[in-house]
């Protein structure tokens, strides 16, 4: 499935999310199961499949990680289990340290330190997104090595996402 085609845009990392959201909304207006409650069984089924596809496409396009994965997949880079890109050793070290610092802050119930780490991880995420945007903007000229580099960046972004999710959970825990 090409989620970009489903939503009527050309594949790119830089997307006008407000415009795509509007398209998603209009497509939902046409396809949502609520619209077909009175319809025949086959019509209900096919509308449901379409609605699911449109929602899936919107879920991919609005999320930088899934959007980047989808762009790479469209360019023939295999993603998913067994195809995780190798991360740079320095990056892995950094993440290990971050993890350790986070679990120490949790032990010490140091909410300020947890917030600080969240801000840092968010800032780093944005940097990586910028790098992805520049990388994908090179378009067809990208070499397989370039693409592998981009896949590595996606891996980093995923690390930060997991770290931020864990931070949220710890914030909840400290507030409870």
């Amino acid at each position, binding site marked *: 499935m090409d989620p970009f085609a489903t939503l009527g845009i050309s594949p790119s990392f830089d997307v006008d999310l407000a415009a795509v959201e509007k398209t998603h909304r209009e497509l939902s207006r046409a396809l949502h199961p609520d619209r077909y*409650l009175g319809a025949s069984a086959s019509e209900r089924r096919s509308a449901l499949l379409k609605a699911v596809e449109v929602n899936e496409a919107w879920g991919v396009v609005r999320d930088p990680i899934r959007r980047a994965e989808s762009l790479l997949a469209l360019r023939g880079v295999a993603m998913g289990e067994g195809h995780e890109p190798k991360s740079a050793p320095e990056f892995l070290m950094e993440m290990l340290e971050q993890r350790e610092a986070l679990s120490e802050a949790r032990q010490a119930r140091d909410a300020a330190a947890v917030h600080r780490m969240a801000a840092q991880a968010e800032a780093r995420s944005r940097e990586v997104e910028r790098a992805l945007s520049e990388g994908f903007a090179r378009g067809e000229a990208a070499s397989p090595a370039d693409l592998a580099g981009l896949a590595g960046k996606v891996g980093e972004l995923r690390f930060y996402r997991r770290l931020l999710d864990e931070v*949220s959970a710890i914030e909840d825990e400290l507030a409870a």
Partner: protein
Amino acid sequence: MALFEIFDPKAPPHPIGIDLGTTNSLVAYVKNERPVAVADCDLETLVPSVVAYLPNGDVVVGRRAVRLAAEHPRDTIVSAKRFMGRGSDDPETRRLGPYEFAEPAAGEANTVRFKVAGSRVVTPVEVSAEILRALKAQAEDALRNVGGAVVTVPAYFDDAQRQATKDAARLAGLEVLRLLNEPTAAALAYGLEKRTNGTFAVYDLGGGTFDVTILLLDDGVFQVRSTGGDSQLGGDDMDRALARELLAALGFDEQRQTPQLIRLVLDEARRAKHALTTLDEVEAEVPGQKRVKITRARFEELIRPLLERTGLACRRALKDAGHKPADIDGVILVGGATRVPAVRRYVAELFGKEPLADIDPDQVVALGAAVQADLLAGQGRTDDVLLLDVIPLSLGIEVGGGVVDKVLPRNSTTPCVARATYTTQEDKQTGFEIHVVQGEREMVADNRSLARFTLKGIPPMPAGMARLEVALHVDADGLLSVHAKELTTAIEQTVTVKPSYGLDDATVEKMLLDALDHGEEDLAVRRLAEGRVDASRIVAAARKGLQADGDLLEAGERARIEAACDALDEASRGDEPSRIRARIDALDDATKAFAARRMNRAIARAIEGKSLDRVEKSVEHAKGVEEAHAR
């Protein structure tokens, strides 16, 4: 037929909306294009969500049950909703309360069980079904024939809690048109009233649950951007905080707390909470005990931690939606607990604006549900209004080392699907265990377990060769179903999911049969009535299609469809449900290809419509999109 039987199968079925609340429940319907709550013979609309099981086998619901609570604290279930979809070892069962719980016997589903009236054991699903049955009877009293129902659930309910709610509705003999999230229902009631566009926050603090939803209202589409909350936080917890204070002031340590005392103290705490809405100071008086003075300031101090928990959820929901408090055009208050002045002040501070509360916060959810029921039954302004909701919690699958692979992130718009592929770890492995969890944490143990099942019959292959695709589907009710297949051999697996908490399908079926109070004859009448309703809907939809998109018809197609419509009409006038069903299927066949063409046109138009300022480009896009969708 007995005189008290109100249901009249010949009356036209009327769709209803039900708010199944922790503290109170109510039912509403649309009358002359406006939603109204159904009142009972005492002109009361709120039915306390209280069910008393008496030693003589009688079951009493509502205000009469409330009066029995003091005398029968263990047999009177208050706030059953807090136990929906929960396991027998859930922390909720250990919180302050008067109940006696029964452990599930070997082989029984892991769900909370209340021990009532001596030896009787009931689940929260059955308790809720009693409340729903009472509401249905109340609606039948006003409408004579009740059609489908929209039943609301907290947005933050997980799959097990939603499933439990749907099971309760089925047990009560209701046809569930949709499970609707409470904040979305409230927004619908407000949005239609105010007819404005913008971004809204719904702050819903009920008796036992807290939800916050950020949604965008754009020309009749209510699009939920994010939702968050706590399915075990509400006015009840304020009562408990106050009750603990009272128990301490009266000098009762834990050993001396009897179920009667706890019930009395909890009731007095609730009265004090209500009184403190207008007074600065009250004297709580537990029968037979000395009076205890409580100031509003002290009460506010006690509930501050609860408010802060709601604040955290609000900030997270805003962040998920990509908004700052200043972006919010209006804040809607829902739930009885938002009457507490400290809650209103807290919300105003949090969002930097005065919240809206001009629709009764106790009624607004049911009113919204009634509007949605009306729309879904095809009687309202279907073309203008649409609700787009999301899943509140991420869905994931357990992978090696007790880690969760998140496959469907929270706030994904429903209906949705996520697929993930896995492989076997050992040579000739023929079974593969799949564990589905819901939650945001990395480790399985920190999330809520939804279901486990084993995918069997994988052909023996070397490790890593099999490709197992697991698909998680979430429908518009927010309910999960799981499908799995082995890709190299395309062996599709029918998966029987054993829920981790709550009842399995077989148990619900059995309860349903046991609870069936209509004879076979009544069932046949019902089936015929339902068939006729479906038939008239489908014929109307088909004829509307012919009129709207006649240019898409191929030679001879119109005649075939019209003939199938006429045949169905004719069957509808008869009284054989099976004949109606067969002709519905025949019409379905006749319209299949035409319907597909109409859908592609609708898709193309949807894409086109959003960018009239770039007409040429959009037409080109629409074509590309039509091709993408036609594949």
